[in-house]
């Protein structure tokens, strides 16, 4: 092994070998990959749970499981997807892999802290799973752990909140690391407004992670004080207020939605210029809309609680602010379209995922307006409409953004290329399955089908069955996509340093990048998206 002369030039994947070198890696790209493998494993687990739930719902009454199992499944599906997959997802994987290279740095500001965050994350993920299986009682409180049900029935709420807090800690540390990295480590000449937009979106995200996550810690302390010292905060039997818990839960969990979606917006903002060979349209509006989303996103949590018995005033206040937060998202969509307009558009897999992101996110966003208006929210709150809406945002938005990032940076990460046609076919299944699965849920929600229902009225039979068929199609697409990516890590054709002809810094280093990214730190002299001589140009 030691004497073997590698034909490959040294890069971050082969400069050291062996399991131990991975488990103790401080290279940001290796840590990103560790997150990628952990998150993919959890994602597949939760996706299978989702598929089983959909099969259960394909017919009225019991199909393949009991009500108790079903309730446990949607709880576990939610906990894994939200806290372990989607919240860390893009920032931890592609933030880690790409951020330092994109700003011309050799690594993040605190590489060891970065590795520590990964282990905190793994600890939190294991605690989360343990909390659901400890004490032999199958978990069924829903991922929101609303008291008093969660406190009376599932004695593991302390563990579950501890897991959310531990995962939150990993999130805080990553956020802190990125903020310092972006402030201190940009290459010489890279002023704030010469920074690419994916790092900008990570910057906005990092501030939310840093400021919103501690609320989970406070909530945890209050629950522990209530359970052990019987200080009544939430439990009405002790004179507490169950709605207070909902407030605290959403003060964190709503901004967390923007932790999920902002990096995905950043990803597609990188993809549109590259595949159009044209600068980003409206660089500054995109930057400021990210910051606006991060800021206004703190003040909309009450829209989850319009039916909770909140005061008259808070109902209109939260509704009003919710409509304001829609504007920055709209601005981004128009700028993305204009980026492609007039370009030389090449419909490769990353762009396919990016434009389906726009389509799905638009539907998710507009149905979010239905939920932001109080009168219409009252009718569709806690129905399948909400479930469809947030899957369009989280899966259609963050999920498709993640797939777009995977197909975009894959040749950079592994130095090989996946099968393009196979990737497009897998996309076809994913996109079709997604819409067949979730769109009928909007209609059923309007008709009154409540969420978290094991069984349903015969009038929902058709919609439920169509939705279940969609789940199967979606799953086939998912497996096809992952198989294509995994298979070609070793067997794919060798990828050049810049297969898509991008102009940001990560495309100027070899694929895969060397251990410390740059032999010489680049000096930046101009804006990030300048295509002086698009390669497509007829000479």
């Amino acid at each position, binding site marked *: 092994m030691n004497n073997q002369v590698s034909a490959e030039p040294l890069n971050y994947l082969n400069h050291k070998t062996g399991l131990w070198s991975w488990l103790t890696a401080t290279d940001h790209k290796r840590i990103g990959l560790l997150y990628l493998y952990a998150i993919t494993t959890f994602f597949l687990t939760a996706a299978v749970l989702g598929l089983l739930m959909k099969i259960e719902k394909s017919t009225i009454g019991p199909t393949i499981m009991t*009500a*108790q199992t079903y*309730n446990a499944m949607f709880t576990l599906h939610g906990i894994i997807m939200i806290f372990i997959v989607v919240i860390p997802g893009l920032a931890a994987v592609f933030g880690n892999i790409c951020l330092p290279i994109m700003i011309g740095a050799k690594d993040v500001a605190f590489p060891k802290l970065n590795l520590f965050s990964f282990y905190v994350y793994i600890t939190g993920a294991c605690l989360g799973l343990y909390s659901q299986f400890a004490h032999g009682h199958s978990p069924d409180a829903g991922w929101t752990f*609303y008291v008093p*049900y969660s406190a009376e*029935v599932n004695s593991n709420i302390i563990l579950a909140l501890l897991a959310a807090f531990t995962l939150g800690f990993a999130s805080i540390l990553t956020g802190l690391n990125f903020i310092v990295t972006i402030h201190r480590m940009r290459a010489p000449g890279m002023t704030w407004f010469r920074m690419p937009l994916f790092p900008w979106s990570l910057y906005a995200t990092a501030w939310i992670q840093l400021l919103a996550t501690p609320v989970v810690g406070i909530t945890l302390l209050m629950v522990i004080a209530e359970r052990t010292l019987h200080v009544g905060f939430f439990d*009405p039997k002790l004179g507490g207020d*169950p709605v207070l818990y909902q407030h605290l839960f959403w003060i964190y969990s709503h901004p967390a939605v923007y932790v999920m979606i902002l990096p995905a917006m950043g990803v597609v903002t990188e993809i549109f210029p590259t595949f*159009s*060979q*044209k*600068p*980003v*349209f409206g*660089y500054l*509006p995109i930057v400021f809309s990210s910051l606006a989303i991060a800021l206004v996103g703190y003040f909309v949590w009450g829209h989850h609680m319009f*039916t*909770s*018995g909140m005061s008259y005033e808070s109902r209109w206040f939260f*509704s009003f602010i919710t*409509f304001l937060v*829609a*504007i920055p998202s709209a601005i981004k969509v128009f700028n993305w*379209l*204009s980026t*492609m307009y*007039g*370009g*030389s*558009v*090449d419909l490769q897999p990353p762009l396919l995922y990016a434009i389906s992101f726009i389509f799905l996110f*638009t*539907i998710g966003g*507009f*149905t979010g*307006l*239905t939920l*932001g*208006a*109080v*009168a*219409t*929210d*009252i009718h569709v*709150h*806690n129905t399948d409409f909400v479930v469809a809406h947030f899957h369009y945002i989280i899966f259609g938005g963050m999920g498709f953004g993640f797939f777009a990032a995977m197909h975009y940076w894959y040749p950079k990460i592994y130095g090989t290329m996946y099968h393009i046609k196979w990737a497009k076919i897998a996309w076809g299944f994913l996109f079709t399955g997604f819409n067949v699965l979730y769109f009928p849920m909007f209609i059923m929600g*309007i*008709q*009154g089908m*409540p*969420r*978290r*229902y*094991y*069984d*349903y009225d015969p009038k929902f039979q058709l919609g439920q069955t169509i939705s279940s068929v969609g789940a199967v199609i979606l799953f086939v697409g998912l497996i096809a996509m992952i198989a294509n990516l995994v298979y070609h890590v070793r067997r794919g054709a060798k990828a050049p340093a810049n297969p898509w002809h991008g102009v940001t810094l990560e495309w100027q280093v070899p694929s895969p990048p060397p251990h410390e990214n740059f032999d010489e730190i680049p000096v930046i002299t101009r804006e990030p*998206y300048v*295509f002086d001589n*698009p390669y497509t*140009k007829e000479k």
Partner: protein
Amino acid sequence: MTTMFSGASNFAESVDRAFIFIFAISFIFTIGITVAMIYIVIHFSRKKNKNPQQFSGNVPLEIIWTVVPLILVLFMFYYGWVAFAPMRKVPQNSMQVKVIGRMWSWSFDYGNGKISPDLVVPLDRNVKLNLFSEDVNHGLFIPAFRVKEDVIPGYNNYLWFQPIAKGKYDIYCTEYCGLAHSAMVAKAIVVDSLEFKTWLADLKVVSNDDPGMAILKANACITCHSIDGTKVIGPSFKGLYGAKRMVLTDQGEKEVEANADYIKRAIIDPNGEIVKGYNKGLMQSYKDVLKAEDIDKIVDYFKKASEQK
């Protein structure tokens, strides 16, 4: 299609108008954005267009697509709010019904011991529902009336409506409340005022039952413990008194006789001894819910039921 656009309360029209307004704008924009996107991808495809233009922004355009959506969403906010605001202003003359939600059934209390499992209301009369929970959070949802409000322990939540069409409508629980959440359903039945008077007069006062049975019904014990021997969530009440049962305790398995003591223990500490074949943790203690004399009445009822056989 059964509920949407077939509203049966005074609120349905204005709520549906807000729905249509928001959906119409959303639909136009979604179609517009999608068509524009497909057009761009085809018209500017790399095959046709090798010379990408290099413009990178336009201030008037940015202003237009900030201001126009802002105005549109403010209208959405407004329509959503004006349709909702009256839902909080209960008319003075409303008929009051107390709604009790519990795991996993509804009861509708019309006063004077008149308690019904379904909500029967007279046509064109303002009705205020006062929402109480005996255990965890629930949500009262009547899709046809476009009303919903959470039923939260310790809160005096309420909602009101005026039914405007006779018929039988669904009531669902919309706040997750455990095992049989999806079975926590009832009907809202709108009848004319004469029918309503007769119905209310004929409604059996609960205390006409055996007092023990009345307590079992009022606390929804019979949702999980059948009286006819069917296996539901907990063991059936049929032939309970004096029967021998295998139970699981922390110390292991043992056989007990279902006597007065056992029944009391099962009510106060339901998880101490679990009948074999059933799950732990599904029932909570009724120590603070039932008075001691009520528990005695329940025991008497079981005793009588076993003697009648």
